[in-house]
């Protein structure tokens, strides 16, 4: 692309790639995160800069935030990133970091997920910045993702606070052109022991409470002139205050001549700047996705504006939805005489989770508390194996609560609590301790596929590798469970249905606390050589009983009354063959 007379290279980057690049350019030195859609690729893009910075996957978001914050306390620029619900886990250190402040800049990236493409709720994490009394920076495209990072670190150091840097799915996962800059090396500041600053025991917290308000007031003043907040004046008729991805939508929808106050620093809101902008337009809109975060504050300041009266606080916006809500314009669409049936995500062909879910679902009297990961899909038909899904770790601890409830009501039931290997390290371990300590009638099942699967195959403390690709000490789940007091730890290959059934029966009958580890690596792990084959149906033997459909494999279907296996999808796991009552399915090597 030609800019002036200088040839400037521009790269097509996702918001997440650009955030990683921006952190690198801003001189970040220590980075720690736990994967979560839509934030994961931020950290997947950091190891390319490992000569200049250290980056890691932590066991969970709280640990990651504490780790990165510790680095900021020690004097270097540091970064953490997580999906919106991850910040619930990490909220504790964030709220206190607000009081203690930083030495090196500290940025927390939250990637929100409007419309819940890959999430269990639609929380709007802008509220967290106001709640924790820290700065909130919101980019609206990939270029801003990169550029605003540098600004965020400077704000953190200048105003002595963590900065919450918020993207959304459409910012993190859309690609646009980005111009790169150079990395600025920011030398570590000298750490000196300063107990007042770095210790938030009650007496000191009481005194620091005042500083928090002072810093916010100074930051609001700064926001009125910050390059993050910019005004585009039009003809004075319509004015739009907006931020984040909603800015891009509003630019498509509002007519030529509309004035925009486009905010990149959204907590605290620059109220003087807003008031001035409002005074120069006849009709003022506040356009934001999800909650009326800015609008409520602007209205509370006595400024007349229109926003959530027209724009829904539910689900992600797009230009067409926004146009419809503001101007009532219905999109022109053609109705078809045919409707598509649903196509939900499913466990992959050959997924090791399938065998356990098929087995446990046959035990109709057992309740299975589920968790977050690929194995969340075990709750869908036809497997319909898990009965709850709340948050990371609840597969074990909510199971404990259910078992106590059934026990005190006089109708005890057997509970199997399911978590994956990465989720076990994240927050399943504490649930496993709860079960032992309080004698809950729950069998923890750790579905160990040796990877963090749903987010796209990241390493975790059990895999033996780090984010930077180095060999690590692999934490052994069975050793952890035994140390907690599980006297019987049954390790089983979930692809072997008979062995899995026996483990389930053994765990139910066990007189001592029992746990199950279903162990088989995910087929998508590239560094492992997988034993692949192909299953075929003998149409002479197939009686069309549809038993093989019950394993919920996308490769298996019924055509003309007989079972058919799609050779382009099948990997030869044989779970369908093991449930066939006529032995009509056999595996061949490929």
């Amino acid at each position: 692309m030609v800019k002036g007379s200088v040839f400037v290279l521009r790269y097509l980057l996702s918001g997440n790639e650009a955030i990683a690049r921006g952190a690198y350019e801003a001189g970040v030195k220590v980075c720690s995160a736990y994967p979560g859609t839509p934030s994961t690729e931020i950290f997947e893009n950091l190891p390319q800069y490992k000569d200049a910075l250290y980056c890691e996957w932590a066991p969970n978001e709280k640990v990651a935030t504490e780790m990165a914050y510790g680095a900021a306390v020690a004097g270097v620029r540091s970064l953490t990133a997580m999906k919106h619900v991850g910040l619930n886990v990490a909220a504790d250190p964030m709220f206190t970091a607000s009081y203690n402040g930083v030495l090196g800049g500290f940025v927390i990236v939250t990637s929100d997920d409007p419309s819940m493409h890959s999430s269990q709720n639609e929380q709007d994490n802008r509220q967290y910045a106001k709640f924790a009394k820290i700065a909130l920076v919101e980019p609206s495209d990939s270029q801003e993702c990169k550029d605003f990072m540098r600004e965020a670190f400077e704000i953190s150091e200048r105003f002595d606070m963590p900065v919450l840097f918020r993207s959304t799915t459409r910012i993190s996962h859309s690609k646009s052109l980005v111009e790169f800059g150079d990395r600025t090396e920011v030398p570590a500041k000298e750490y000196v022991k300063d107990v007042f600053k770095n210790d938030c025991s009650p007496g000191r917290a009481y005194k620091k409470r005042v500083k928090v308000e002072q810093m916010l007031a100074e930051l609001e003043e700064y926001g009125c002139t910050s390059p993050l907040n910019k005004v585009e004046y039009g003809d004075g008729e319509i004015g739009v205050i907006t931020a984040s991805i909603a800015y891009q939508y509003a630019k498509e929808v509002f007519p030529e001549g509309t004035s925009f106050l486009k905010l990149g620093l959204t907590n605290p809101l620059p109220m003087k700047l807003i008031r001035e902008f409002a005074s120069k337009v006849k009709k003022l809109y506040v356009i934001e996705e999800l909650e009326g975060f800015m609008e409520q504050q602007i209205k509370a300041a006595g400024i007349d504006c229109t926003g959530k009266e027209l724009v829904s606080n539910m689900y992600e916006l797009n230009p067409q939805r926004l146009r419809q809500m503001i101007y009532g314009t219905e999109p022109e669409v053609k109705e078809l005489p045919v409707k598509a049936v649903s196509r939900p995500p499913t466990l992959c062909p050959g997924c090791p989770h399938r065998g356990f879910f098929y087995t446990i679902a046959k035990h109709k009297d057992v309740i299975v508390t589920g968790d977050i990961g690929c194995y969340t899909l075990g709750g869908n038909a036809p497997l319909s194996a898990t009965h709850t899904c709340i948050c990371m770790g609840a597969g074990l601890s909510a199971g404990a609560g259910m078992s106590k409830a059934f026990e005190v009501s006089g109708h005890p039931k057997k509970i199997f609590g399911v978590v994956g290997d990465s989720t076990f390290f994240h927050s399943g371990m504490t649930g496993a301790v709860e079960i032992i300590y309080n004698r809950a009638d729950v069998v923890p099942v750790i579905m160990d596929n040796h990877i963090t699967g749903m987010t796209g195959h990241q390493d975790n403390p059990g895999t033996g590798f780090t984010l930077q690709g180095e060999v690590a000490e692999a934490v052994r789940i069975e050793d952890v469970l035994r140390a907690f007091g599980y006297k019987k730890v049954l390790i089983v290959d979930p692809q072997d249905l008979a062995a899995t059934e026996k483990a389930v029966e053994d765990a139910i009958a066990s007189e001592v606390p029992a746990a199950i580890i279903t162990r088989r690596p995910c087929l998508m792990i590239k560094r492992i050589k997988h034993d692949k084959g192909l299953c075929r149906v003998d149409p002479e033997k197939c009686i069309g009983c549809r038993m093989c459909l019950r394993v919920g494999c996308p490769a298996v279907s019924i055509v003309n009354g007989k079972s058919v296996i799609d050779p382009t999808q099948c990997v030869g796991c044989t779970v369908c063959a093991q449930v066939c009552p006529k032995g009509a399915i056999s595996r061949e090597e490929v």
Partner: protein
Amino acid sequence: MKKSVILVGVGGQGAILTAKILVNGLISKGYDVKMSEVHGMSQRGGSVSTQVHFGDKVYSPVIGKGAADIMVAFEKMEAVRYADFLKPDGIAVINDYALQSATTSAGLAEYPEGCVEAMQSAFKCHVFDAAGIAASLGNPKCMNVVLFGAMTAVLGMDDIDWEKIIRETVPEKFVDLNQRAYWAGRNAISE
């Protein structure tokens, strides 16, 4: 000028690579481009859409209903699912190919009959067997680039050197295959 293309299909069919080739070509001509992708849970065999929005200056990476100029459907039921994203005068390039969904293979619903005919009754469509062409080229996975080739015939930006863009976008060992796939797709609907 602003245009948008929506690529729809099933997670794992290669829509993102296809969109990437398109975007790289558009960038080579100096267009402003935004592209949105789907990651995470819906990738696991679920219904996915990738959108490319380009022009002299574009803002939104996503479009809404009734806004796409071109649809590329990697699977015919997905064409029906996203049909309301097409402008009434939009053009659809449809792979005459059915993939069962978890719902249909479990016998919980019937795969709908007449998807292609329904699309043809409402829109200008180019329907062809991209899966068959890909298989005849020796690798079923290049179906995405076969579809891409067909889409370029509809897009009409013939000043873009797509062979060169493919060479620059795909891994070296797949350049030859993908260039053949591109031409096969392009010829399939220009004939």
